[in-house]
């Protein structure tokens, strides 16, 4: 059952991209750790972390593609699931600091000591264990998506209305996490991390391992997502996207179909957030900013919605562009991003990968037609010779 699911997932492009991700998961750390800094092939650690961050963004965009590209749910709140995963990991990293904080409290993170708290809040328990934090990074976003989706899809909230309430959701979380008494470090969030699994978070080895973990997580999620969208369930999802009522009158429970995709997608976004936080060294409420979720939509659209590979390409390109652009003209980035979105919508509605596919398909059809013509001409020739 599982093997057939995986086999179906693997079309040629997916195999290529998965293999590429696995290769860079091994190669980039090797070039960082095993070459001298003056070696021409050496990859400096800051580049490793920068691209590690892009890979987590790519995973977030891939998660969005599952719901937006294949089910037509334009979620403008996906960064919230990402941030929740990030907070779960951040809580673990805070607990790893232990007595090395400025106040030297072995149990309480600095911000709690500062707030004069005497005891660790209940919901911080368990986060000293990595496996627990990792589990929560998946379960909490998944649970939120499940509850949110349960109500939204059952009451048939669709289209713009759904997008608006996802924005409201992330905005509400933004406000909540800003509050000091929520117990998540308020405005400053969680930072000053020291170790992860006992290894220094700053060390080259850890940075490389986090990069590799991000690449592997992305590869794995790509195979899973591809398996989902190529199964019969995935075909139903596309049916829901294109003709929702037809799916209903065929007897499918549209709300269940949407709920599953939405929950899986939120879980993936949570994993992305959990990998993001140790690489950037901070998580704060700004990650819930509604604009962040909109950016994810732009990466996905630029790369090509509904292509799985497109969102990965889009996330890396746009963020690469952002890193270069913001270094030169920081004030203009938002205008550039907005302009890019408009241009893509107008001139590349299928995004980079979608358009490339279209071109290849057209060429193939053209060649097929030419070949057929040649064959016909050949068949006609003997008669002409008579």
């Amino acid at each position, binding site marked *: 059952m599982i093997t057939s699911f995986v086999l179906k997932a693997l079309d040629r492009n997916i195999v290529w991209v998965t293999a590429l991700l696995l290769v860079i998961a091994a190669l980039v750390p090797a070039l960082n750790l095993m070459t001298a800094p003056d070696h021409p092939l050496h990859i400096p650690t800051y580049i490793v972390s920068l691209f590690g961050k892009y890979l987590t963004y790519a995973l977030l965009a891939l998660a969005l593609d599952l719901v937006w590209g294949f089910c037509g749910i334009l979620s403008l709140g996906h960064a919230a699931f990402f941030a929740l995963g990030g907070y779960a990991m951040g809580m673990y990293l805070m607990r790893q600091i232990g007595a090395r904080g400025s106040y030297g409290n072995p149990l309480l993170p600095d911000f709690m000591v500062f707030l004069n708290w005497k005891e660790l809040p209940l919901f911080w328990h368990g986060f000293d264990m990595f496996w627990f934090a990792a589990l929560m990074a998946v379960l909490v976003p998944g649970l939120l998506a499940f509850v949110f989706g349960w109500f939204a899809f059952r009451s048939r909230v669709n289209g713009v209305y759904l997008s608006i309430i996802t924005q409201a959701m992330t905005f509400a979380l933004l406000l909540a996490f800003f509050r000091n008494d929520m117990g998540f470090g308020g405005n400053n969030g969680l930072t000053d991390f020291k170790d992860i699994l006992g290894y220094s978070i700053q060390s080259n080895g850890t940075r490389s391992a986090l990069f590799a973990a991000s690449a592997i997580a992305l590869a794995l999620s790509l195979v899973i997502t591809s398996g989902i969208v190529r199964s019969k369930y995935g*075909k139903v999802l596309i*049916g829901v996207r294109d003709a929702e009522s*037809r799916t209903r009158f*065929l007897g*499918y429970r549209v709300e269940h179909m949407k709920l599953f995709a939405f929950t899986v997608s939120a879980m993936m976004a949570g994993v992305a957030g959990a990998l993001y936080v140790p690489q950037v060294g901070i998580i704060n409420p700004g990650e819930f900013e509604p604009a962040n979720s909109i950016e994810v939509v732009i990466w996905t659209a630029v790369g090509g919605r509904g292509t799985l590979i497109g969102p990965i390409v889009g996330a890396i390109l746009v963020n690469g562009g952002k890193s270069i652009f913001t270094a030169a003209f920081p004030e203009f980035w938002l205008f550039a991003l907005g302009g890019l979105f408009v241009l893509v919508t107008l001139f590349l509605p299928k995004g980079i990968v979608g358009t490339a596919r279209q071109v290849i398909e057209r060429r193939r059809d053209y060649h097929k037609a030419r070949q057929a013509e040649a064959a016909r001409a050949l068949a006609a020739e003997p008669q002409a010779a008579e």
Partner: protein
Amino acid sequence: MNTLASNAKPTSILYLDGVSVSFDGFKALNSLSFVIEPGELRAIIGPNGAGKTTMMDIITGKTRPDEGEVFFKGAVDLTQKDEAEIAQLGIGRKFQKPTVFESHTVWDNLELALNRKRGVFSTLFYRLTAEDKARIEEILSTVRLTNRKDDYAANLSHGQKQWLEIGMLLAQEPELLLVDEPVAGMTDAETTETALLLKEIAKTRSVVVVEHDMGFIRDLGVKVTCLAEGSVLAEGSIDFVSADPKVIENYLGR
């Protein structure tokens, strides 16, 4: 409310009694009542806005009636169920505007319609069995789309889309088919073929066809119900109904 002989209810496949529904004060259905017998093929005619599509919306759970009874097989109260439940009970519906999954192939359209488990996990791990394959192939040849099975539904002609949708209905294996304007936009030859197809289908299940094309209705040669302003104007053979002065005034004469 008892406009019909209640004794028709237990043996009927579809039973509507005193069904009314209004939209913003406009009565789209006004105490509509009729009965379909098991295995019956029934044609429904009536002017634009008579409430024919609304009637189908009520039967399939898309719209809830303000009042009245709707029963399937004499015992199942359809007013209490939603679209998916009603479809799973065995009522299939073809829309007035042909609605197929345009970005899927003809084959996938039929595979999705096939009467199999419809849950998330059963579809996630579904594998095409030899039996399902044979069934899809059979339907393909019934609706004459075998040589287009790998084409995207978007690339079919209007008439072929209508046929694909009928094929999807067949794949659902419903006991009752509701078919809204199946020959709209079809050529005369296609129309004749469609009449034959529907008669063939009606041998094994009940079918309700809404249509404006009087030639097509004659081809069917079955009992006709004429609706106007949300209720039944006349019912009987096509000759009987089209001779009715009220029908001529409200529909045919216009």
